């Protein structure tokens, strides 16, 4: 492993820092970050130009099947320790109001909102970070107890959007303005607009929005009139039944699936469930491209693990058959199947 050398720039330090994450060497990683601070690099840049891109790379390595889940968790933990060390080093005195930062219920990607929390703290806000997967009830009772100037909510996976919406509404009812962020709202934040929430593409943008309370309150209302067709609600009601039938279908058509171990079976059931959840989220915000993007991502994950796109297509085909009476779901599934067939023909070439 490479010894951390004192680099004066986050981009120069990046390689060495990534090596520290690879080796799960918490102390060396902290040394790299603190050396940058000592060299006069602003704390915000260390967080956004060193920790954030390294964490994105960690996610990529998991997606490419180069790293196990355990390695990814360990690296994330180290990044969190680095963030804590940088924050402690900067030790900014709060001058602004209180801002509450939290992950949506069921959302475990705590590092990106943690970075937002620290950037806000560096800019003088009094920040409370509630952590990963915060239940809505907990958040609301916190807001009732402590006056908050704003709430920043993070969502990394679009399949959590329906829950995200409930949480945004809960904050609204407490009369606290909300800013949301994270890949879960789409790369351009278009699903945040559907849910009627102010969206920030980055930590600095979130800090600017939080500083402008009137802009936070000046958001267009949610556009969810399409929910009246009941497709979303029906899909959620039939979730268990859909997974069961998809599993039966898989066992019938893929003989190997009959001999799955408990762990394999759990993983398969969880995947089948994710497909339903992403489809439901696409119906919730009425955007079939949400589902198509998910299928594209899923095919990438599967192919890096040696599973052909056709395997995913089997399930999409099954769902399309069962859900033929759901026009919006059927259209999203068709877009998804276009992704699997495109990936299949890419693989064939």
């Amino acid at each position, binding site marked *: 492993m490479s010894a951390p050398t004192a680099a004066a720039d986050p981009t120069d330090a990046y390689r060495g820092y990534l090596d520290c994450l690879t080796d*799960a060497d918490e102390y060396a990683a902290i040394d790299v970050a603190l050396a940058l601070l000592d060299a006069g690099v602003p704390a915000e840049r260390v967080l956004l130009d060193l920790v954030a891109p390294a964490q994105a790379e960690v996610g990529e390595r998991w997606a490419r099947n180069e790293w196990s889940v355990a390695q990814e968790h360990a690296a994330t933990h180290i990044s969190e320790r680095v963030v804590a060390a940088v924050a402690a080093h900067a030790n900014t005195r709060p001058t602004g109001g209180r801002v509450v930062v939290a992950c949506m219920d069921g959302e475990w990607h705590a590092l990106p909102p943690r970075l937002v929390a620290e950037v806000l703290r560096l800019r003088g806000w009094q920040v409370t970070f509630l952590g990963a997967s915060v239940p809505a009830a907990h958040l609301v009772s916190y807001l009732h107890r402590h006056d908050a100037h704003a709430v920043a909510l993070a969502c990394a996976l679009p399949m959590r959007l329906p829950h995200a919406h409930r949480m945004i509404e809960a904050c609204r009812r407490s009369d606290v303005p909300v800013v949301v962020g994270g890949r879960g709202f789409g790369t351009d934040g278009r699903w945040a607009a559907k849910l009627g929430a102010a969206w920030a593409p980055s930590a600095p943008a979130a800090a600017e929005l939080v500083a402008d309370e009137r802009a936070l309150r000046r958001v267009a209302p949610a556009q969810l009139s399409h929910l009246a067709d009941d497709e979303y609600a029906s899909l959620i009601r039939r979730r268990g039944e859909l997974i069961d039938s998809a599993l039966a279908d898989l066992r019938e058509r893929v003989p190997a699936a009959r001999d799955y171990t*408990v762990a394999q079976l759990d*993983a398969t059931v969880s995947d089948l469930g994710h497909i339903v959840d992403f489809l439901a989220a696409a119906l919730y915000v009425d955007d079939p491209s949400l589902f198509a993007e998910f299928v594209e991502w899923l095919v990438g994950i599967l192919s890096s693990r040696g599973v052909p796109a056709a395997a995913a297509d089997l399930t999409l085909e099954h769902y399309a058959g069962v859900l033929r009476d759901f026009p919006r779901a059927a259209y999203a599934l068709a877009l998804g199947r276009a992704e699997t067939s495109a990936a299949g023909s890419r693989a064939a070439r």
Partner: protein
Amino acid sequence: MTASDVRGFDPGDGRISTPSTTRALARSADASLRPAAALPPLAPDRGGAEPDWSEVVEHFREGLVVCDAAGVVRHVSPVAERLLPEVVPGELLTAAGVPALGDGSPVTFTHRGRQLTARQVPLSGARCCWYVEDVTESASRADALLAERARSAFLAVVGDKLGNPLHPDRAAAAVVRLAVPSLAEVAVLVLAPRAGRARWWRASRCDDETPLVDSGVLPGVDLPAAIADGLTGVEPHAVDWLVEQAVDAGWLPGLSGAESAARVVPLPGRDAPVGVLLVARRNTRWYDEDDVQLIRAFAARAGAALTTALLYRDQAEVADTLQASLLPVEPVEAAGVEWGTAYRPAQAGLRIGGDFYGSHRLADGGSVFFLGDVSGKGVEAAVFTGQLRQCLQALHRLESHPGRLLRLLNDALLETTQAHGQGRFATMVLGVARPHRDGGLTLTMAGGGHLPPLVLRASGEVESVSLRGMLIGVVPDPRVGEVTVRLAPGETCLLYSDGVTEARGGRRGDEQFGPERLVTAVTGCQRMPAPALAERVEQVTCDWLGHGDHDDIAVLALRAVGPSGRAPRHLHSVPEPVGAEQQRETDA
């Protein structure tokens, strides 16, 4: 339409004359100008005598003005005569000086203080007829209805928005924000002073929909007299000097004293008013009686919301203090041990539950650690965990052998529960960790009917530690299981509550997570730092649950990291991904 129908429409103001008095008048005015052919053909009346159509028409709510081809007025019905006295038969209609009766398109206009509508209908022979109606009453009724609807809608929004913020500052900000622009251009809320200081919130109207809100604190003695009066529950009626006072105090940005109207209303509280609301706007919209009623209705709702919020604050302060004493305390730093914890109570809003963990340092450099679960849920269970932790805090100073300590705890709890007649009990693992020079740990653990700990070996193997024993707090002198485990540097011991293994989820949401899945979830995690491992167990459990209900979840992980606190890195053998299916977790 018949004459009786027309009378049915009579607004009752007596302006439409009764037939007996109008008949003669009508005939005298236009007997020659009523050719039957000019009127639209009507179905013959079956049987009865031919009605006198002219007489019937006279009683229409609409007045009639008939002009000939040259625009000369030939007939004016009594209703039209009253509404438009300028229109005289035999003269040009244009000469009457009613410009609205110009080009023939339907118009609504105000004439002699009445609101009229007029429409022109062409008749045969290039003649035309104007139908003129007095709509003053119906228009004002419609206006009143719209105003009333707007007031109801406003109060509905107010009720909706004010019911939810339970934080007093939020509620106060919401009150002033809601008052603008419906009630005021500037709204100031002053809360009843506490300790001689009065907090205020102000919303001022801006160019767009969102008002600008600011707030501050004033010494109680500096409040304008009208505000101070309001705080005693008196609604000041001398409105003129109120504006002057508020403007002088600099409270009304953008409004001047001469051209503004203002009102002050107290917000009803539990006994005295909880605060006072000052509303002000340009006197182009004076506050009339309806407006004042609306402000009072708003004040009643705002007062209720603020009272609730203040009550909640007082209660929550007590609850928070008690909760804080019942939350698990993070393990104290100990040489050679890296702790990892996770805690997720069943009732998310409550933050406390029946699971507990913790640690205490021993004088000899070791640490006592424990994790357990008391019977029951919620506040009562949490209170029992508090008693249990306090017992342990005292007892570990007398006894550091885990088995004997657990028996002492059992006796103490038995006494407490019998004294209170609670019949509560606990399951727990209690251990002592002693560090070695090589960076390893010796764990001596005693079991009181709790789930077996897991040990993550450096080899990647996951061992379940056999540890039996009876429930704690049920019988005197219970059977307590004891076991000693040696952790090499980098190895981890994991304690967890049944909220993990009994989590119900899966396809149908009714399958238990079970110990096997837990072992699978932590397999391959031997190089993880203890906090990351604890969080992983929490995450995998919550993912399994979906968004279903769950029991309290608690996890405590201890990792042997050596005296420097650094886990040796060479032990991190990273296993190859086992198989594609096992790695397919969507938690990138």
